[in-house]
């Protein structure tokens, strides 16, 4: 009996969003998106990471109709956005980065408005369900301007969910919210995915992508630098670093350690290991290193280890073009 993994299922499915050669050059000459190719799979949570000005919001804007691309094509649900924008937009939701809405409106009316704007009939039960799921039901009659920043962001999420989109963009959904609320929102996003919504989020918080995303894309200067499964990216680019402080200086590497990604510091007091695959191999090699030292009669007084996080990988890719991670 053959088992089919999620990756195999994803690979067999048509992408829910297929971006081909998407380019946006502003009249001033700035190229915000430079021939971006990106495929999003149905049902996944995709995190798009990138520094400020990398093109994340422009990419979202191009898909959602806020930005007019200067080149390339966007296909959603198998159809061309340019030709079938009306039907496709009805299936896409957007939570913007800015807290932008009519702040004088009460919560309930604002969310109802969003549903109507997308052409759907009123559904009080569904609206109540959405508001309750975001802990907004008790605030339904409050003017949005009187809510806290975190609550306002929830209102924007409720408005985006009001038409039950199949594909939801969250542009920096937890920017400016406290840690507790951020974790609460992670839970909400996970629940959206559980209901079958495909979620694409941009974030500055690497831990957010690490916590939630199935796949991660890294964008830099309008170009997609890398797209991969989060776990595969960690495995491929993740590294273990270990520093072993010796009690006595060495003049050269012991014989058993040569060829094991170990270097000796100039003062001979520290052995530095850098290797592994981000999936446990590095830890095993560090353990083997310490055993070798013991067998060789080399005494050590301290060991420091560090596993590279998604943040390390991200910083490396953005600042060094991935050179350090790949080294």
């Amino acid at each position, binding site marked *: 009996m053959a088992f089919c993994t999620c990756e195999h299922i994803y690979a067999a499915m048509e992408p829910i969003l297929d971006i081909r050669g998407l380019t946006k050059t502003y009249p001033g000459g700035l190229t915000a998106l430079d021939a971006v190719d990106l495929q999003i799979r149905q049902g996944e949570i995709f995190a798009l990471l990138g520094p400020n000005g990398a093109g994340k919001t422009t990419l979202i804007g191009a898909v959602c*109709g*806020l930005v007019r691309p200067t080149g390339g094509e966007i296909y959603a649900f198998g159809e061309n956005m340019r030709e079938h924008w009306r039907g496709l937009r009805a299936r896409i939701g957007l939570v913007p980065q800015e807290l932008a809405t*009519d702040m004088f409106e009460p919560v309930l009316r604002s969310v109802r408005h969003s549903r109507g*704007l997308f052409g759907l009939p009123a559904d009080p039960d569904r609206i109540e369900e959405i508001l309750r799921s975001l802990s907004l039901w008790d605030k339904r009659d409050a003017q949005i301007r009187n809510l806290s920043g975190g609550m306002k962001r929830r209102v924007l999420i409720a408005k985006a969910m009001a038409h039950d989109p199949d594909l939801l963009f969250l542009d920096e959904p937890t920017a400016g919210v406290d840690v507790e609320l951020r974790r609460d929102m992670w839970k909400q996003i996970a629940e959206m995915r559980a209901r079958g919504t495909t979620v694409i989020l941009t974030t500055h918080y690497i831990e957010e992508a690490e916590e939630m995303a199935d796949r991660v894309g890294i964008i830099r200067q309008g170009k997609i630098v890398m797209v991969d499964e989060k776990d595969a990216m960690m495995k491929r680019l993740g590294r273990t670093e270990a520093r072993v402080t010796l009690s006595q200086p060495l003049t050269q590497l012991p014989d058993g350690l040569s060829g094991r990604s170990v270097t000796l510091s100039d003062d001979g007091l520290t052995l530095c290991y850098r290797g592994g695959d981000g999936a446990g191999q590095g830890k095993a090699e560090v353990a083997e290193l310490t055993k070798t030292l013991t067998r060789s009669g080399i005494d050590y007084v301290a060991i420091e280890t560090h596993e590279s996080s998604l943040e390390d990988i991200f910083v490396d890719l953005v600042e060094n073009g991935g050179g350090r991670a790949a080294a």
Partner: protein
Amino acid sequence: MIGFNARSAWTIYKQELMRAFRTVMQSIFAPVLTTTLYFVVFGAAIGSQMQGGMGGVNYGAFIVPGLLLLTLLGESTSNASFGIYMPRFTGAIYELLSAPVGVAETLVGFVGAAATKSLILAAIILITATAFVDYTIAHPILAVGYVILVSASFSLFGFILGIWADNFEKLSIVPMLILMPLTFLGGTFYSIDVLPEPWRSVALANPVVYLVNGLRWTFYGSSDVSIWLSLGLTLAFLAACVALIAYIFRTGWRLRS
């Protein structure tokens, strides 16, 4: 892709009307009060001292169409321009732009609501005017049609203004510095026939003259210029506004980056 989503249009329309009623003092009471003061000062007080009236009509009654138009032009333009400018200013327009909503739904929603507000104002003003001046409407159906046409035209114009403006100053410049002077000089308070040449000919270059006289004809069956010319120019203005808005939506000018 063509199509029309009536529910989306109704949602925008309803939202815009609610916004007006949320600011009822500013949206309804203020213009009604201002126009009423005109009726009191020019119609009842000064008008009663003018023997023979203007153009064969009692002066108080003579200024009713002009004052009605003064309010219609200003309010239609302001309502529609604020309606679209505010979401642009706050960033809330993202929701409209990302929704399955085209130019038709947007116009029916925003412009329809702005025109409706103007029509409500017009009705209140006409009812209020009866307390101060005696007037009649010779062609009531045509008058209603003409008021609707003017409201729709200037709501479309206001919508364009709201897209063009990138600050609040620009938003108020056109109604305050262009529309109001043109309306005052466009025969609201007098017949241009009383002007000496060359000022009468100069006045004919003022487009508001044709609007005021068009409405005045529906009230009293006579005016300084032909009703057909007034009607034709108003329809041409409406068509030009629609064409410009269609262009704006096609190119995304000032709406999509």
